[in-house]
């Protein structure tokens, strides 16, 4: 019922930035991730969807270096790598924005953006930091009223924007967004989706973890479905309907059939 072979989308000719093969992770007796393959390409938004317990969070945490994987191999730009700590992940060029954003509410936007990598040690270069903050936020067309107000006074979408902007300061190649639109209103969700598109335009590989099918359909190029710790289908957006994805998530249909069906229908739907 599940499928383990990687499915390289036919549209891609360039090699993936990041390749994961046969990733597995157990917590005691619980097998959170059985065997998962994932390719991340530059200039592409790949959505990872799945039911609760499908292994999305575990996969993200392996990528972010929070939990090292038990099994499987990772290649970053063709090199075999191991990620055993958050620092490893960051050094490789993988930036992760967790769902709780990890912002300091009492600090202003600039301080949050540069937290842990301030310019200047004994005399902070506020001017440079503020200038770069403005540049970065403008590049992302972010709607932040001022970079000198406390993060606490920003809306949910703005906070998400600040968190994403912060991840870009390290000049990453891959950005992982964990449920970026959960708990956001309609307008703010749109704001964040625009932002995700801008990340793609910047040439980044974006991994989007989401429960929200509408968001996934709106912004992703490719959907990877996980089910019970295994791959359960991979679909290019535009050749697939929301129902197909939901079916793959819930395991309602046989995966191979689904894939065949989506493959044939893809030509009619176009995109």
């Amino acid at each position, binding site marked *: 019922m599940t499928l383990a072979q990687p499915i390289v989308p036919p549209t891609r000719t360039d090699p993936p930035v990041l390749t994961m093969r046969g990733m597995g992770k157990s917590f005691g007796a619980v097998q959170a991730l059985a065997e998962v393959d994932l390719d991340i390409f530059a200039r592409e938004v790949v959505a990872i969807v799945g039911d609760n317990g499908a292994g999305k969070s575990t996969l993200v945490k392996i990528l972010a270096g929070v939990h090292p994987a038990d099994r499987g191999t990772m290649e970053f730009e063709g090199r075999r790598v191991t990620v055993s700590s958050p620092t490893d992940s960051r050094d490789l060029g993988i930036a992760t924005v967790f769902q*709780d954003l990890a912002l*300091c*509410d009492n600090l202003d936007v600039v*301080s949050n953006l540069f*937290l842990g990598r301030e310019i200047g*040690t004994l005399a902070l270069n506020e*001017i440079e930091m503020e200038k770069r903050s*403005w540049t970065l936020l403008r590049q992302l067309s972010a709607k932040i009223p001022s970079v*000198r107000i406390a993060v606490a006074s920003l809306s949910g979408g703005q906070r998400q924007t600040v968190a994403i902007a912060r991840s870009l300061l390290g000049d990453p190649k891959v950005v992982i967004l964990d449920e970026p639109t959960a708990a956001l209103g309609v307008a703010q969700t749109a704001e964040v989706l625009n932002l995700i598109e801008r990340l793609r335009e910047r040439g980044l590989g974006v991994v989007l973890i989401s429960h929200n099918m509408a968001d996934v359909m709106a912004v992703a190029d490719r959907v990877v479905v996980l089910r019970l710790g295994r791959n359960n289908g991979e679909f290019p957006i535009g050749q697939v309907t929301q129902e197909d994805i939901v079916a793959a998530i819930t395991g309602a249909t046989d995966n191979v059939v689904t894939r065949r069906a989506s493959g044939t229908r893809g030509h009619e739907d176009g995109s």
Partner: protein
Amino acid sequence: MSDPKAPAGPDASGADETVVGETVADETVADETVAEETAADETAADETVAEVVFEEESLDARSPMGAWRGFVSRTRTGDLGSLPVVIGVILIWGIFGILNPDFLSSSNLVNLALQCAAIGTIALGVVLVLLVAQIDLSIGSISGLAAAILAVSFTQWNWPLPVAIVAALAVGAIIGLFYSFLYTRFGVPSFVITLAGLLGILGLQLYVLGSLGSINIPFDSWIVRFAQQMFLPPWLSYLVAVVAGAGYGITAYLAAVRRKQAELEAVPAVEIVIRSILLFLLLGVAFWYLNTNRGVGLMFVVFMALVVILNYALTRTRWGRSVFAVGGSVEAARRAGIRVNRVFFSVFVLSTTLAALGGLLAAGRLAAANQSSGGGDTNLTAIAAAVIGGTSLFGGRGSAWSALLGIVVIQSIASGLTLLSLDSSIRYMVTGAVLLVAVIIDALSRRSRAIHGRA
């Protein structure tokens, strides 16, 4: 005025009062406050420049009116900063000044300034601990232990004074090292660690003092002269005022120029000039008034310098930023790559060292160390000063200036009530009420910030 050690040996409190009474004891308050306000103003001004100008609601902040409107807006939404304390100081001084004109006399203000230095230094350490949302209940005991070490090693063992001082400070630092080890390694709440420290270190203090119980430090020793009799020469005090005003103006102007070059909003030159002239006048007048009596106590100057240095470290260095980050959210700080344990380590060590330094200053002022050094209400006065000054008990909000503002409020009340011949029972009750008001203001402004989305 001799508040912190009410139940001290007769010897001790006597000495304290003598010192205080020397010049009618009252003046300290006014002087200190002026100086403090100036200083606070300086920093506040500095920060306001940064904040107000860039705040969204004050896009017109380039004009002085805009700055004022930004200030009003922030205050309304609960971002009170030091405002309540400054108002409190003005009220307290006004009331005591009316009730007893001696209160605002220069001699009283000179003394008030001196009284603030010791516990103010301890409160400075408390500010640091509170900023990372921790507490240190043992600061009083540490200050007492430092005093005991100084007295015993200097007078009994005949160590040179500098060595004795360094030894006392080193013991303070080691205690902080131990606390941070316990906290970061075992995760024991600092409340409990320092509660144990409160008792254990008090025991250590009594052990060091031994059977003597009370040791006098010779009046002609440097530390006693420093704490009781050394004052800035008038010319030097005016030089300090000039340097402070000009220094502020020049740095602010250079920063504004660089901001303009970077195409960021900058404070207009007029405002900078006005600010630095105000700063100079405030300091100058305060120093002039104090100089009509004995002058600006050197111990107070040292305390002020510590406040300025710590303020710089907290607001302008990477370390300071990480202290605020840890106070705001430990997890966020950790994920941002800040070595959280190192921050806790530095904060605990600094705060216990400052407590030890405060104890040395107190011992110098008292010219003695005894079993009640650092006892009585030293602990709670220092913590209360930090909180009254506007440092939040909940972490991540506050400033070095709050130690200064808070201790001035507390010592002003003490001095004023003493002048009115009210005894310590009233003083404790009034100080308690003021502390309560300060905490209520903190809680209310937190709520208001939350309502206005500025939490």
